[in-house]
């Protein structure tokens, strides 16, 4: 999402390079395409991740537009059910694994070293490798669309046996591509952990780190814990499909429900992998534009950690109607409700940070504030879904679709956009165009709510999810949703325009682009030179 032309190193920095951690970088090395292919610089890799993520965001977005166009009115008009199912599946997979996760990894690549005063990531070559796995993985995944039998059509949750015994032949490729994406995430997580734990500038203790760094550290641990479980599950699927085992096949003594337990043991922490870094970004942006220190820094850290730990104890709330005994229903209902406590603490802290601040509403702040409001709405519907008896009515309806889109779109995606607007001056040396950014913001906010709010009603009124055609009483809600979706989709072109314009020029930004910003990245020039903090910066440890 950032610069096409990476910031050039200054002569001084090139000379000062000797002995730095990032000594793999060769300035007289390859140019053009090869240079991007072989780069080990955290800023360039961060940029690559962000550009990749933005492309995937648009591809996944196009799939969503196909879905919404078909659902514009009852009846089948544009696509057949087989293709519709491929679209919903690919939309989910691409958005989760291709757009949201790589965007956060991209932001981490750019900003974690800058915020902890490190010269680069701890493992620069590994960093390059983990990025280049992604285009391979997703090219493979997208290629399944043209395979005989079509792309995966069993939903992004790929429940067995629909995804094993009854799956299209392309499923093996889907498994392989998910393996590659998983390895990429794992390597990225190792790198981030190694960087944060070992490369902090002298004097920076853990409790001095910015919340973006903290949330990413916790996220990286979650990734290490659950990505291997995903790898295990899809390996079992692979064995069931191609080697005649029966992990998930009742005929051979297996259990399809086991698949769901394993999947959600990965899947629920995965949901937090997509939201914790968003918490971090918002916790950095709100104090900046409130010109006031973040309220309750320590409790923010503890809340994040408790959300991460609780995320391992709630997986079966996705399975309330699968036939669990009463005790299990009660346990998972209570543990899920508990998550509302640390999440609530976070929201209260953000609002108290605003209280008695000195607020301005630049584009990053607008997105961060919309995040707080709309994510909280998603949290409310999450609390309702946690109530197991009521979930018997909500489960697998558009109410659930509304819920997780509220936490993922105006949640995770808005936080990513807030982060991009916040750090664009650092990346490019220019402020994003204010008027255009405001248009982007307001059209997105209106579009998002128009899209996802009516889904609550459709779901409560009884519309199941993942259907290409629906009964007539859901027609009005769906039409509004589709109009909102087109509006939201088109307004994202403005985002591309803002980013491109910002890379090319615009109002010059000083080193400290936002007057309330406090972290270390604002002590280096804008745009950030290619090499930074080759000698550890001076750090005053009292800021948090």
């Amino acid at each position: 999402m950032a610069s096409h032309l990476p910031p050039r190193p200054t002569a001084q920095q090139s000379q000062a390079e000797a002995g730095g951690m990032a000594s793999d970088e060769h300035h007289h090395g390859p140019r053009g395409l090869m240079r991007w292919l072989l780069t080990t610089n955290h800023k360039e890799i961060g940029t690559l991740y962000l550009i990749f993520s933005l492309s995937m965001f648009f591809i996944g977005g196009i799939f969503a537009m196909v879905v919404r166009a078909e659902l514009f009115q009852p009846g089948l008009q544009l696509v057949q059910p087989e293709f519709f199912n491929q679209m919903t599946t690919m939309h989910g997979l691409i958005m989760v694994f291709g757009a949201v996760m790589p965007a956060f990894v991209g932001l981490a690549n750019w900003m974690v070293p800058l915020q902890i005063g490190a010269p680069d990531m701890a493992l620069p070559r590994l960093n390059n490798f983990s990025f280049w796995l992604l285009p391979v993985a997703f090219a493979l995944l997208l290629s399944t669309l043209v395979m005989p039998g079509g792309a995966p059509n069993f939903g992004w949750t790929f429940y067995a046996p629909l995804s094993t015994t009854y799956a299209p032949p392309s499923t093996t490729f889907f498994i392989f591509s998910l393996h590659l994406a998983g390895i990429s995430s794992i390597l990225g997580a190792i790198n981030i952990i190694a960087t944060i734990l070992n490369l902090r500038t002298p004097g920076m203790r853990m409790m001095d780190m910015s919340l973006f760094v903290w949330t990413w550290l916790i996220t990286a641990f979650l990734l290490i814990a659950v990505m291997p479980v995903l790898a295990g599950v899809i390996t079992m699927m692979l064995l069931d499909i191609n080697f005649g085992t029966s992990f998930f096949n009742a005929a051979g003594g297996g259990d399809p429900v086991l698949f769901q337990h394993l999947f959600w043991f990965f899947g629920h922490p995965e949901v937090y992998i997509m939201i914790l870094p968003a918490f971090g970004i918002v916790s950095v942006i709100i104090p900046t534009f409130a010109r006031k220190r973040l309220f309750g820094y320590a409790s923010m850290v503890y809340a994040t950690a408790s959300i991460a730990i609780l995320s391992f104890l709630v997986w079966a709330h996705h399975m309330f109607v699968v036939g669990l005994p009463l005790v299990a229903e009660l346990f998972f209902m209570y543990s899920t409700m508990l998550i509302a406590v640390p999440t609530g603490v976070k929201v209260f802290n953000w609002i108290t940070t605003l209280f008695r601040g000195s607020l301005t509403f630049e584009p990053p702040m607008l997105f961060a504030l919309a995040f707080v409001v709309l994510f909280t709405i998603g949290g409310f519907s999450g609390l309702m879904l946690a109530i197991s008896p009521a979930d018997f009515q909500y489960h697998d309806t558009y109410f659930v679709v509304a819920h997780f889109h509220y936490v993922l779109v105006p949640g995770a995606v808005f936080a990513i956009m807030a982060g991009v607007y916040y750090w664009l001056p650092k990346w490019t040396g220019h402020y994003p165009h204010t008027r255009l950014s405001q248009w982007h913001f307001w059209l997105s906010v209106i579009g998002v709510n128009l899209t996802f709010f009516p889904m609550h009603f459709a779901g409560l009124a009884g519309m199941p999810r993942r259907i290409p055609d629906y009964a007539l009483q859901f027609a009005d809600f769906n039409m509004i949703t589709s109009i909102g979706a087109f509006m939201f989709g088109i307004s994202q072109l403005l985002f591309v325009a803002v980013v491109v314009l910002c890379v090319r020029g615009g109002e010059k930004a000083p080193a400290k682009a936002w007057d309330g910003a406090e972290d270390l990245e604002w002590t280096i020039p804008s745009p950030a030179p290619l090499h930074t903090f080759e000698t550890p910066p001076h750090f005053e440890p009292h800021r948090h």
Partner: protein
Amino acid sequence: MRLVWTAGLVACSGLSESVLANGWNMPVGVTDVSREIHSLHMTIFWICVVIGVVVFGAMFYSLFRYRRSRGAKAANFHEHTTVEVIWTLIPILILVAMAIPATATLKTMYDASEADLDVMVTGQQWRWRYSYLGEDVAFTSNLATSRSQVSGESAKDENYLLEVDEPLVLPVDRKVRLLMTSDDVIHSWWVPDLAVKQDAVPGFVNENWVRINEPGIYRGQCAELCGRDHAFMPVVVKAVEPERFDDWLAERKETASQAALGVDREWELDELMERGEQVYGTICASCHQPDGSGSPPAFPALAGNQAILEDPDYHIDTVVNGVSGSAMPAFRSTLNAVELAAVITYERNAWGNETGEAIQPADIAELLDAQ
């Protein structure tokens, strides 16, 4: 204070029942459980609304009051242990208050007392099969909406996609135990008005129960993605007075034996074709298409399919016993001998297949009752 608050909530949820009980909200439903769930849903909803008003109120007050453009200067506080402890404890109390009624409702839903009637519900791509245990009555329930309505060639009915050829008939005021399972992938049987949603898992049985308070027709859908026609396998429950239910059951047994009549006689080709076309239209056309063209590779074409045309036994075997690991179910228990013979004959003679062969119900019957 707390009392006032609770009273307010109760008043709100009472109000909501009249205002929101339309196509915008969860239906109140026609069972005690569905009512309980609905009131639980409304209670939690209003609690969320109240929290939302307080939280967003504080937020928007700050956004308005402390703008720099209005000359706000930032204060310098950044922690306050007491406040933080309070806003950790209050949500816990609210959650406990929510958990108590939720636990009670859940216990009611898991009540295992003896049922008056047991019905086995089997999901199959893409229809439901109901069998009344101990009554020798079993039938499948298929989507009744015509393909032309789906494609937009004809106007859509009021109950578009929510109508079936034969609904599940249940008595009111009787506890009915529903046993769920599946023949192929996971399905989920859901009727919002009954507040029953339960996954049907292949190879495993789940159970749920319902006691309907009012006669009527209640519609729902499959709730778990089960492949191509997931949107086209509705559930329709017709609740009737117990006496009418007994009559219906007796009548249904009679019809079943009537339908099986004529197994012994020789059938004309035309007769079989006519019957077969009906069966094909309700059961087979959704996958193999009305014109027999199928949608390969998952659903082979039947028109011009040499494999079945050359080998009638293979054709019969496939229809009667199904194909394992594919979407082709075994129809031995779903269709009677006459229907099987008719549909196979139809497939062997329609769309230019023209084998001229009539498969006789008697031969199929022999195959089915070889024991």
